[in-house]
C-alpha cells in the first residue's frame, strides 16, 4: 500500500470533520429557497441510495443490479403502510428498511447455492425487472401506472409537505445510516466483506462463511436503500413506477463510480454532485441517458477509483480502510 495511513491526530480531525458537516448543514435551510431546499433533500436521498449500492458493488465486489429494486420496495412499502394501514410515516422508515433488507435477502439468496459474479448479477437484474413488473401489475396494492399518493400527515403541528422539516428528518436518518455503515465496515464483519472481494477462497479458509457474508451485505444494502425509499416517497409525495426504472439504475451506477467504488466518502460526494445536474437535462429526452452513460464510460477509463482516490492523494485524512488503488 503506497498510501500513508492517517496519524492519530489526523484521525481526530477526521472525526471532528465528520460531525462538523451535519452540524453546518443544520443551518442550510436558512440560506435556501424552496427549490434549492427540495434539491438538497433529494441529495440526501441519493446519498443513502449510493451508499447502499457502493456496499455491494464496491466493498463486496459483486456486480448487482437490484439496488433500484430495493429503492422501489422501500418507497412502495412506506406508501402502502402509510396510506392503507395508517402507520405514521416516521415509523415506516425502519419498516421500509426491513422490507428492503428482505429484498436484499431474496435477491442474493442464490449466493448460498454458490452463485457468484455474472450469475448473481443476472439474478439481481431479473429480480429488479420482476419488481418493476410487480409495481405495474399489483394494482390493488400499488395503484399500477397511476402510482400511489402519500397521505397528508402532520408532525409536531407542521405538515409533512414542509421541505425544511423533511430536511431535518432526512439529515438525521442519513447521518445515522452513514455512521452505522462506517462502523459496520470497520468491524470484523466489514473486514470479512472486503476480504471476500479480494479473494473468496482465502477468506473461506479463515473459517469465514463467505456466502453468509454476501447475504448479510446485500441485506444491509437493502436496509439502507429501503430507508432511502421511504424518504423518497415523502420527498416527492407520490410513488410512481417510473421512478424506479432504468434511468435510476444508471444514475446510481454513475454516482457510485464518480465518488469511487467502495468508498463511503465517495458515495456522499457522487450523490451530491450528480443529483442536481440532471434536473436541467430532464427537459430534453435522451439527454439523461447520454449524460450518465458518458460519465460512467469516462470515469471507468480516466479515473477508475473516482473522486475518493484524488482526495486520498490530497491528505491521509481521506484514506479509508482497505481501499483499493484500482477497481
Amino acid at each position: 500500500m503506497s498510501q500513508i495511513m492517517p496519524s492519530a491526530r489526523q484521525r481526530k480531525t477526521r472525526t471532528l470533520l465528520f460531525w462538523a458537516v451535519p452540524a453546518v448543514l443544520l443551518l442550510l435551510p436558512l440560506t435556501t429557497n424552496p427549490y434549492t431546499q427540495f434539491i438538497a433533500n433529494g441529495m440526501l436521498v441519493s446519498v443513502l441510495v449510493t451508499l447502499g449500492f457502493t456496499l455491494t458493488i464496491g466493498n463486496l465486489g459483486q456486480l448487482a443490479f437490484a439496488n433500484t429494486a430495493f429503492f422501489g420496495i422501500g418507497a412502495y412499502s412506506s406508501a402502502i403502510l402509510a396510506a392503507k394501514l395508517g402507520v405514521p410515516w416516521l415509523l415506516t422508515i425502519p419498516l421500509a428498511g426491513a422490507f428492503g433488507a428482505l429484498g436484499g435477502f431474496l435477491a442474493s439468496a442464490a449466493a448460498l447455492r454458490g452463485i457468484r459474479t455474472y450469475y448473481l448479477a443476472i439474478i439481481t437484474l431479473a429480480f429488479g425487472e420482476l419488481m418493476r413488473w410487480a409495481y405495474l401489475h399489483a394494482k390493488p396494492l400499488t395503484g399500477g401506472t397511476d402510482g400511489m399518493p402519500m397521505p397528508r400527515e402532520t408532525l409536531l403541528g407542521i405538515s409533512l409537505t414542509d421541505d425544511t422539516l423533511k430536511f431535518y428528518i432526512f439529515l438525521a436518518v442519513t447521518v445515522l445510516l452513514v455512521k452505522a455503515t462506517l462502523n459496520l465496515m470497520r468491524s470484523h464483519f466489514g473486514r470479512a466483506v472486503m476480504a471476500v472481494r479480494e479473494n473468496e477462497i482465502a477468506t473461506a479458509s479463515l473459517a469465514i462463511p463467505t456466502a453468509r457474508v454476501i447475504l448479510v451485505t446485500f441485506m444491509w444494502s437493502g436496509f439502507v436503500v429501503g430507508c432511502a425509499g421511504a424518504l423518497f416517497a415523502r420527498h416527492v409525495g407520490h410513488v410512481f413506477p417510473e421512478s424506479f426504472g432504468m434511468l435510476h439504475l444508471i444514475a446510481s451506477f454513475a454516482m457510485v463510480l464518480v465518488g469511487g467504488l467502495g468508498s463511503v466518502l465517495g458515495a456522499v460526494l457522487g450523490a451530491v454532485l450528480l443529483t442536481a445536474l440532471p434536473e436541467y437535462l430532464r427537459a430534453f429526452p435522451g439527454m439523461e441517458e447520454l449524460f450518465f452513460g458518458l460519465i460512467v464510460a469516462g470515469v471507468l477509463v480516466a479515473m477508475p477509483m473516482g473522486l475518493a482516490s484524488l482526495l486520498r492523494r490530497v491528505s491521509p485524512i481521506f484514506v479509508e480502510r482497505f481501499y483499493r488503488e484500482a477497481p
Partner: protein
Amino acid sequence: MLMQLTLGGLSQGMIYALIALSLTVVYRSTTVVNFGHGDFVMAGAFLSYVLVVLAGVAFLPAAALAMIAMFVLGVMFNRGLIRPIRGGPHIGLALMCIAAGYLLRGIARMVWGREVLPMPPVFDMAPIFVGDLVITGDAVFIIGTVLVLLLLFFGLMALTDLGKMVQAVYQSPRGARLIGLNVDRFNDFSWGVGAALGALGGILVAPVSLLHPDLGASFLIKGFAAMTLGGFGSLGGAVLGGVLLGIAEQYAGAYLDTALIEITAYVVIVAVLFIRPQGLFGRKAVVKV
C-alpha cells in the same frame, strides 16, 4: 391450439436464440458479458426502421446495411472503450457495457422522443392454413432466416478452424497468442459478430412489434434467460434455451395468465440457477468454497 402456440413460441424463441447466441459469441471469445446487449438489439431495429421508412430502402438491403453498421459499431466499441480497461475486473467491463447501452438508448430517445413507432409489415404473404394451424408470413420469415443463419454459423464453427480458434481464445488468451493467433483482432471480430447478430434479432423483431428506445431491456433479460437455461457459454445451449424459452412463454401465457408472458424469463433464470446452475449443457457454474 397447442400446435399454434408452439409455432408462435418457436418464432419468438428464434429471436431469443439469436440474441442469446450473440451474447455467447462475445462471452466465449472475450469473457465479457455484454450487459448493454439489449440496446444493441434495439439499435439494430431502429437502424432498419430509419433505412426502410425514412430512407426508403428495401427491407433486405436495409437489414444488411444495418448489420454492417452494427458490426462496425461493435468493433469500435471494443477498440475504444473495452480495450483500455481490458485488464480490470469484470465489474468495470460490465459497467462499461451498461454505459454503452445507455448511450445507444439516449441517442435513440434524442431522435425519437417518447414516441412508439410501428414498422410497416415486411412480408405481405397470405397466411398458410394447415388444418387449424395458421402460419403467418412473419413466422416463416423469422424461423427461416434464423435457421439458415444457424446452419451457416455452426457449419463455419465445425468445418473451419474458426471453432478451434474460439475454443483456444476462450480457454487461454495467452496460450492462443503463443500459437500465433491475433487475439486482439479476434476480439474485435467477435464483438462485431456479436453486435451484428444481436442487431439482426432487432431487425427481425421490428416488423412484428412496436419500436421504442426501451425495447432492449426485456430482450437482454430474455437473452440471459436463454443462456442460463441452455448453459452459460454453450453456443448450442443458447440456441436451444432461446427456443424453449419462447415456447414456454406462449404456453404460460395461454394456459395460465397472459401477464405471465413477461415474467417467464425471470422465473426461468431464478429456477435454473437454484435447481441446476449449469443449465442444460453448461459447465459447472457454482463456486465451491
